[in-house]
């Protein structure tokens, strides 16, 4: 295992700008990126990675091998929230436990994209189907969490009455904006192939790393603003926010080895397991489980797990994978 990878990763513009953003907030600078820009940058990244993944899939074709990581990913997106819920229920109420379980069962697209960027810097290839795996893993944890909460007598409207029918819930989770854009872009990339890629490449690919860099600056600012709220969470949840991803990463590496995934795909699967959502899931949970405290699940995922994965997790997982695979 090569620890210098961590330094190499830290000395890349995207990560340095993430740290710069955190520093700005922590030092008290008023540096701020307007919210519509934050959202536009994140939509751009989803669009780009979706098209890119779709085109890669178009190139490689659908081999059966492709279905294996997809299957592992979807299974994990059901199993991980179940495990997390059991762990968290020791300390938390039903809704908070379910909300955090959904958060950590789901994935962080930005962490995934940063890992893709890491692979490109290392010159390691990955399969376009990993983007599909990401899209498929995003929503199931929401359903799992709501079902868990319902089994424990909690409903979206409170007082046990007037619940959303399950069908509506499935639909809403699958139609979540970011998930929809990602899946749609993947589909367009798959359908239009090289010709479609040629049309969008100068927009979607060439400036990609630069946009990611600016976006991570913004994420650093936003993440650091949530550090304050972490105090409310206490040591147990802070430990969970780093320990649980490490557990998931170990699991993902083991499964990747068993499944014989290539290095690039293994890293991406690991990052999907180890990352926690701070876009799709918090939004869905705010509506489906309004009794859960957003100042628990959001800061944990955004201010701890995300920076940890970005700065240390990705090179660490990669070093382990490279060491094991070789």
């Amino acid at each position, binding site marked *: 295992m090569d620890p210098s990878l961590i330094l190499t990763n830290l000395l890349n513009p995207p990560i340095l700008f993430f740290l710069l953003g955190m520093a700005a907030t922590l030092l008290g600078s008023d540096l*701020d990126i307007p*919210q519509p820009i*934050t*959202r536009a940058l*994140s939509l751009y990244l989803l669009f780009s990675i979706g098209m890119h993944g779709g085109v890669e899939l178009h190139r490689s074709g659908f081999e059966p091998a492709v279905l294996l990581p997809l299957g592992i990913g979807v299974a994990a997106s059901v199993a991980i929230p179940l495990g997390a819920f059991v762990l968290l229920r020791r300390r938390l109420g039903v809704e908070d436990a379910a909300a955090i379980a959904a958060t950590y069962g789901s994935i962080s697209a930005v962490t995934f994209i940063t890992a893709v960027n890491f692979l490109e810097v290392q010159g390691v290839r990955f399969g376009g189907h990993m983007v599909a795996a990401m899209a498929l893993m995003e929503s199931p944890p929401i359903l799992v969490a709501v079902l868990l909460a319902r089994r424990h007598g909690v409903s979206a*409207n*409170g*007082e046990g009455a007037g619940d959303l029918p399950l069908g509506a819930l499935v639909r809403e989770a699958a139609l979540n904006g970011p998930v929809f854009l990602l899946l749609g872009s993947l589909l367009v990339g798959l359908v239009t192939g090289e010709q479609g890629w040629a049309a969008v490449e100068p927009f979607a690919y060439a400036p990609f790393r630069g946009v990611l860099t600016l976006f991570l600056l913004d994420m650093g600012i*936003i993440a650091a*603003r949530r550090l304050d*709220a972490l105090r409310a969470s206490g040591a147990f949840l802070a430990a969970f926010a780093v320990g649980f991803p490490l557990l998931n990463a170990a699991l993902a590496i083991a499964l990747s080895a068993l499944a014989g995934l290539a290095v690039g795909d293994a890293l991406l699967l690991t990052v999907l397991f180890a990352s926690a959502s*701070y*876009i*799709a899931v*918090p*939004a869905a949970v*705010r*509506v489906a489980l*309004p*009794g859960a*405290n*957003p*100042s628990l699940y*959001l800061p944990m995922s955004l201010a701890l797990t995300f920076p940890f994965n970005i700065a240390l997790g990705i090179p660490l997982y990669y070093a382990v994978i490279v060491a094991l695979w070789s």
Partner: protein
Amino acid sequence: MEKVSRIEIVVDSLNSGRVVELLAKQGLKGYTLIRGVAGSGERGLQRGDDLTEVSNNTYILTTCPADKLEAFLAALCPLLRRVGGICLVSEAVQYRG
């Protein structure tokens, strides 16, 4: 010109759709929405800086004849209890040209 109850509601943006549905159900067809509002309350800071609407509030202004107020509040309060937020009621005179 008409004497009305002036109702303003602040609720997190992701749940504001529920309030709007409730307005419709109560027959209140006129309202104004200000999105992307920040705030502070029992549920902590809403910074309005998020990638989603999670940390945003929506401000809703509507009016109703005094005799419809009670029914409206009876429907609204359980929702606010569940999702948080605040409702202020005051008196005003409404002109529509």
